[in-house]
């Protein structure tokens, strides 16, 4: 009995089921081919293919352009940051040495003058290219920079009777420097966000 089931009935049932399924799905999906192609169909196929290739390329280019633009903006910010850092480090050294000479006063004066020139170019560039949301921080950065210049070239630093930078003045210089860096970070955040 087992032999009959295994070698005759099971293959027969399998064959019948297979034929039945074949008959049912034979016409699914039901469509017919029209071998006459219109010229508009050719254009349609080319256009579809073109769009399929063009859109990803366009998206990639837009992403790359944005990335490059952001990289330029970061570079500008870093350049200005570095210049400020150099001057601040110099002032810090002068403070740590507990002695300020005429040449130090002249150096700070020259560097702050050059930084002003640099800031002017940097600020104009950033205002033109940064997202609108960063404009407020750029204006705040300008005020912070002017306040930093104000205290760093004040009478408490470059006055002829000044022999060292006192603690109170240095603390204010550091505060203004921190305020500038805070604005620079906020501008970076806005650039990343947009």
């Amino acid at each position: 009995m087992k032999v009959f089931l295994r070698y005759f009935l099971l293959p027969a049932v399998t064959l019948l089921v297979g034929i039945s399924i074949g008959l049912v799905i034979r016409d699914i999906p039901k469509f017919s081919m029209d071998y006459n192609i219109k010229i508009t169909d050719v254009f349609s196929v080319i256009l579809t293919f073109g769009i399929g290739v063009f859109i990803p390329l366009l998206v990639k280019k837009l992403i790359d352009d944005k990335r490059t633009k952001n990289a330029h903006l970061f570079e500008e910010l870093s350049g200005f940051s570095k210049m400020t850092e150099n001057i601040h480090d110099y002032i810090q050294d002068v403070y740590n040495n507990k002695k300020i000479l005429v040449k130090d006063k002249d150096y700070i004066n020259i560097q702050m003058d050059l930084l002003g020139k640099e800031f002017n170019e940097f600020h104009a560039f950033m205002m033109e290219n940064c997202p609108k949301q960063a404009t407020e921080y750029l204006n705040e950065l300008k005020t912070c920079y002017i306040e930093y210049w104000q205290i760093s070239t004040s009478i408490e630093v470059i006055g002829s009777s000044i022999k060292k930078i006192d603690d109170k003045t240095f603390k204010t210089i550091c505060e203004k420097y921190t305020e500038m860096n805070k604005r620079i970070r906020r501008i970076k955040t806005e650039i990343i966000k947009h």
Partner: protein
Amino acid sequence: MEIKDTLIIAKEFGDTAGARDYDDGDYSGKEFYDKFLLPRFNKAVEGKYALLIDIDGFWGWPSSFVSGSFGLLSKEKGAKIVLSHLEFKCDSNPMKIEKAKYIINNPEKK
């Protein structure tokens, strides 16, 4: 307001900025204020015209000099009248103009 007088700092006063007071050495802000800025500013106010301050060619722009001259003028006369009778020119470094205006508007701040 029409500009009828120009004060070229580098030509008339000197090409280098000193500090604030006479005690701080030559070319101080106070010296500039006493000898050039105040008399020319007063004339401008009397004549109802603007005085153009040409900063080009002037080396350095420390806040002590600016507060000793423009800041002092602002304290004496008031920021509004000072800004209405003074115009600035500095093609080489326009930031100097911003700094001067900031000091004029905030003469008490350090």
